[in-house]
């Protein structure tokens, strides 16, 4: 990697103050450090968030679960609060990467990076979550804007994500056999406002599927989801899957996510 200046503040205010010039926040490093080692990413300054206790932690109450931005995936997967309130979210976190990745990777890092195949964005969008930053709150609908694109402004620090507790939810992930990222990942949530279905891995960024939401609103069953033929337009094409296959797998994963939510 290229040389850089390294800062490790102990509170959020110091972190945002340290974000000067060509800077980047370092969360769990599971994407950033890899990119830096390959010399694909380089910033003059890294601001390491790992020493800020206020950014870690999980709190449940008032119909939602709030997860600190620097909470590792392993903690979300193991959290009694998350497992009780939104078990699909705990399951999703437990399926990210491998144990080493889960010990280091964080919720805030994942959503700020907005990898098109990341798992968390599907949960945020399906549950109607709210992203809290150092300066505002951003609804999930507005947060993910494109390929590796978010609504975050330069230097804006994600501090926590608040997930409303759904009536029922399920997540199914079709793992890319090589990278084990989501070739397709579908999060289905039955909320007070209706059914929400969010899909990751299939397009340039996470999206809600109107076709699946309509079908499941009419009949919240695996069969109803399986029967949906998603349009192929905009679906990713790569070595591992064609657009047609991805579209078909969205329906299959959706039906399995529905089955999982019903089984709880």
């Amino acid at each position, binding site marked *: 990697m290229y040389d850089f200046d390294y800062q490790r503040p102990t509170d959020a205010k110091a972190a945002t103050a340290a974000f000067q010039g060509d800077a980047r926040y370092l969360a769990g490093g599971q994407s950033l450090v890899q990119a830096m080692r390959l010399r694909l990413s380089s910033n003059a300054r890294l601001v390491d968030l790992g020493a800020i206790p206020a950014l870690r932690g999980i709190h449940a109450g008032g119909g939602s679960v709030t997860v600190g931005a620097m909470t590792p995936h392993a903690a979300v997967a193991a959290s009694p609060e998350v497992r009780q309130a939104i078990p699909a979210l705990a399951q999703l976190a437990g399926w990210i990467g491998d144990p080493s990745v889960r010990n280091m990777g964080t919720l805030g890092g994942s959503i700020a990076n907005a990898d098109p195949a990341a798992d968390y964005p599907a949960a945020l969008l399906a549950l109607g979550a709210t992203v809290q930053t150092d300066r505002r709150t951003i609804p999930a609908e507005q947060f993910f804007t494109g390929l590796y694109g978010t609504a975050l402004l330069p230097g804006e620090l994600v501090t926590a994500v608040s997930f409303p507790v759904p009536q029922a939810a399920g997540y199914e992930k079709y793992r890319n056999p090589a*990278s084990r990222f989501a070739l397709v990942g579908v999060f289905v949530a039955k909320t007070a406002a209706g059914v929400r279905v969010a899909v990751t891995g299939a397009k340039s960024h996470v999206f809600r599927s109107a076709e699946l939401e309509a079908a499941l609103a009419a009949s919240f069953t695996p069969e109803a989801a*399986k029967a949906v033929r998603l349009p192929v337009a905009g679906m990713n094409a790569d070595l591992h899957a064609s657009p047609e296959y991805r579209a078909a797998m969205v329906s299959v994963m959706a039906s399995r996510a529905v089955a999982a939510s019903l089984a709880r």
Partner: protein
Amino acid sequence: MTDLSQPPVSPIGQPLRRREDARFLTGAGQYTDDVVLPGQSYGVFVRSPYAHARIQSIDTSSAKAAPGVLAIFTGADLADAKVGGLPCGWLIHSQDGSPMKEPPHPVLAQGKVRHVGDQLALVVAETLLQAKDAAELVAVDYEELPAVVDVATAAGAASAVHDDVPGNVCYDWSHGDKAAVDAAFARATRVTKLEFANNRLIPNAIEPRAANAQYTRHDDSYTLWVSNQNPHVERLLMTAFVLGLPESRVRVIAPDVGGGFGSKIFLYPEETALVWASKRVGRPIKWTAERSESFLTDAHGRDHVTTAELAMNEQGDFLAMRVKTTANMGAYLSTFASSVPTILYATLLAGQYRTPAIHAQVTAVFTNTAPVDAYRGAGRPEATYVVERLVETAARDLGMSPVDIRRRNFITEFPYATPVGLTYDTGNYAAHLDRALELADVAGFAARRDKSKAAGKLRGLGYSCYIEACGLAPSNIAGALGARAGLFEAGEVRVHPTGTVTVFTGSHSHGQGHETTFAQVVAARLGIPVENVEIVHGDTGRVPFGMGTYGSRSLSVGGTAIVKAVDKVIAKGRKIAAHLLEAADSDIEFENGEFKVAGTDRKIPFGQVALTAYVPHNYPLDKLEPGLNENAFYDPTNFTYPAGSYVCEVEVDPETGRTRVDRFTAVDDFGNIVNPMIVQGQVHGGIAQGLGQAMLEGARYDPESGQLLTGSYMDYCMPRADDLPSYQVDHTVTPCTHNPLGVKGCGEAGAIGSPPAFINALTDALGVRDIAMPATPERVWRAVNR
């Protein structure tokens, strides 16, 4: 209390824990990258980002001025110094009698770059980071040229990878009796035909390639540490063919090596450039490949496209086989590349069967991709895939059981001279097939299939009855077939005065466990404890000679050389014992580590004879030299022929196309077995690689740009433990008839036999005739939804 009345249990056949594991599992291994020499400097290669381009200019001025840079070399510097190109060790002739095309294979690119990753400059600096930074400052002006990428269309393509090989054909070779084959096909009432690719693979040894080269002024010599499978061969090729140095001036040390699978046999540009540069720079130079470099530049494997036909009569007797293959050589001829799709391939097309007429025609082509050479199995997986896919499909075409069609055609009388040039010495194919059927519970398959169906899944069963030729090789046969080297092996047995033994073997261990198994062999033969035998390998400064480890040759060829040296030691020991026991030489027997006078209980142990050899007071000095140290060279009289029967059972989820190997059964005949645990480990690993090829792996280049699309594990799908079931493994034994251990070799069999077993099972599950490797979920899903 030890029962001294019982003879000690021979170590042969014991599953002794590997002695090398203690250091490997506790971080005490010494790999090439662990070597740091006084005055160490670091090398980084500048590599082409294009698949095919003319080098208009290379400007190193900024790079040379960068901090810590000691030197920068390009192809022009090596050309000025008259450094040769990398040689190919096997000469193949085309059907018209002309020799294969051997375009220059420069150490650093000259004039053109011919694949993404082709190296064109070496930057040497004080630290690795400085070398990397400086390498980015080397400014190359490229004129991009059209890339020839696909093996199927390279021959006759407008763009020439090498200017003096227009049309890109390296050779057009054939083997077998074409007239007899054509006549048989004309008569046959049944022909089964398949067209398929054997997918390109990237070796991915866990330890990337690495080298550290040091020039020493005091005796004008070089020492090269390199992650390599055959240090003496590496030395010979580099000194005699490229650098023009006497071999005795170069010491090559391959210390602990973390896997090779063939990829570390070859003489590569990197270590060659380092050795040459180390004298000019006057500092040792170290290079370790990054994984992305390994993906781009380690020799890849396989990459054939084939049309294969099997002619039969109505009863399913095989009458003839006809095979036409196009094989990818990559951008340059690697050390053994030409032999892999010819000598190591076409000669195995008889398989386990009595097919009387066989003909193969192989066209080898250059493309703008990484060089392609031997990779675990080297030609035999490709041959086995042809034979076992044809045989299974033929059974289906005829409505016959795939087991019955094989039994019907098995070779049963040995020795058997095949129509493709090999003579199988011994075997019993029905024995391992029977055992495999039993172990795989084939009888219960129908019920399991019904159960899967009830759960909405598809289940299939497939077979593969493979044979291979290994234990390379009788030198005279190899030479007649085009080898430019001998393929014997060497071993030296040095008995120490205190009775311990050090064995210097030309074989190399990079995962095979030779330090354990060779010690078992020697300890058994000398009747001494295994702990008293030390095995030394991998250093041309300590081991007199060797051809190295590949082609499953180490135990059968290397082990036999050691056995012959041990027998010389025993022969000399007899004479010493005869003197000590005051008996005639011919009255002395050697058994269980003791020399004794036949028919009496007068005996002395090996240790005492050893001591006497070095303290020759009561000793026949007038007739016998002191000391006890013998060496032997062994040239095998034939290849060895491991064979086996594999059964694969898969379950497919038709919704997604994901396929699970539910069970995999392997019964192999490796002849006698020295360490069953190590043999099982070899089979396990080989099957993992074979299933990896069939289900998961595949090196892909962009057809237009020639960029390597599968440049990392994000896209190149390596098998993991959760992709594979626990295997059922067993063995049968027909000892090899032509080496004293009766062993056949086991290192590659798993990778050879498993791919067709898997594809046979999968096509059975899907009810389709064929499916390409790797059988990705999407491919399977499309087959289900056709």
